């Protein structure tokens, strides 16, 4: 279980998060929504200690990750798979080697075992013929899928997705949403999805956390989201439902 407790974070004197708390239950899929620039990615990076809060703390399975050594933090991080916004594939390596990288680095697998595992992961994201290509030769959707294959290569307990469908066409978005759902069911992982794609939220999330004006404005499950009378939340949901498929939202 991941617990974010009262964290505040500013950059260069400008507050991005103020007193934000959030609990992620084992096995659930939690969506973090909010306008672009509202601090969703910043919040996600706190969960694995890529950023340290100015105030507050983050507990992963009861361990305060701000108070452990760097070595211990790295051990904690190995339970996570992260899909970064732009994929963050290593551009010095082929797609195959990207997926193989965590396996080669953290397990004692033979090259045959590595191969089998990589192909299985690539199969999971419906890519089997891109292995030798470099990231620069892949489309945006393919990059995200390869990155997803890399994120799940070591069968993490937690998967963090940063805007998994942004910048993708509706068809590829649906594929990714199905993958996220499939992984959550098959691997029994806890997933956190940072997104503003309401269609994606409605199809994959159990619970939703809405960040607005640096605060955690609203948290609740999908039913509560539908029933909510909160005007800011309703406005956000509505705006983003209209925006689906609209090019202007692609990079926000």
């Amino acid at each position: 279980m991941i617990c974010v407790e009262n964290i505040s974070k500013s950059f260069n004197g400008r507050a991005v998060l103020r007193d934000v708390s959030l609990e992620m239950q084992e096995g659930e899929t939690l969506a973090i929504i909010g306008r672009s620039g509202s601090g969703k990615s910043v919040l996600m990076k706190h969960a694995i200690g890529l950023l340290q809060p100015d105030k507050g703390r983050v507990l992963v399975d009861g361990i305060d990750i701000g108070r452990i050594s760097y070595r211990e933090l790295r051990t904690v991080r190995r339970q996570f798979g992260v899909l970064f916004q732009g994929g963050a594939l290593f551009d010095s390596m082929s797609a195959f080697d990207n997926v193989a990288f965590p396996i080669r680095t953290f397990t004692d697998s033979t090259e045959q075992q590595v191969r089998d595992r990589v192909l299985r992961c690539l199969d999971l994201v419906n890519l089997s013929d891109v292995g030798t290509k470099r990231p620069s030769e892949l489309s945006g959707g393919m990059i995200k899928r390869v990155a997803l294959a890399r994120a799940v290569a070591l069968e993490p307990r937690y998967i963090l997705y940063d805007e998994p469908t942004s910048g993708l066409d509706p068809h590829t978005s649906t594929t990714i949403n199905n993958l996220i759902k499939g992984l959550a069911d098959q691997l029994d992982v806890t997933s956190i999805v940072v997104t503003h794609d309401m269609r994606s939220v409605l199809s994959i999330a159990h619970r939703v956390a809405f960040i607005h004006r640096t605060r955690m404005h609203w948290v609740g499950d999908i039913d509560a989201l539908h029933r909510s009378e909160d005007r800011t939340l309703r406005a956000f949901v509505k705006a983003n439902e209209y925006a689906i498929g609209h090019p202007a939202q692609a990079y926000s």
Partner: protein
Amino acid sequence: MAALEQRLIRPLYSLGRYALLLSKGFTSLGHFSVYRKNLIVQCGRVGIDSIPIVALAAAFSGAVTTVQTAYQLVSPFIPPSVIGAVVVPSLILELGAVVTGFILAGRVGARIAAELGTMRVTEQIDALEAMGLNSIGYLIVPRIMAGIIMFPVLYVTAVLVGVGGGLAAAVATDVVSTGEFIRGARENYLVFGPMFGLIKSFVFGFVITSISCYMGYYTEGGAEGVGRSTTQAAVISCVYILLSDLVLALVLL
């Protein structure tokens, strides 16, 4: 007041972060096997790939020093062997290392900063960290090691090629014969010279790679930030080459 504070604190902050970067990189290294491949790749890029340009610059430095020494010194009262006596020690003591240093500050420094800077702004460094890898150890240690291993090799190359260039220029302009040139060089040979040059090149290798790694690793602000880091890496490396050159001369000579 704020500006003054900025000026005083900023360098200290950078220095502290630089020291932390190095200590974090070198203290929590994992298995060498993770770094070995990277180290070999980096040695190729820092060292082998730089040989042509270093050799070219060294040949010209040797030739120019020879021609100028001949122009300034040679008269009926001074034997022509003095050219060898001036040119060879200059190359060994100063030019071999400094010329190589400047070239690598541009070539290797900019490359390292651009590579790491791009990895930073595209979240590749975050991705390494998120996997549970020590990104500093993985990315920076092999580059610095490659610098301190390959730089002395390049220095030796530069000196040899530089002496060759000097000799060729001397013979071509007919100011001194090969025999005289070599006799001058041998008579004025300092036993400590090559050692001093090697120490210098070792230090320069560290200075350039570590500063460029620092600039690249802490890049902020997209493509523009990468551009800024890249130029700064080259410029700041050059400044610190000059500074460390002076310090080493004061301490060791």
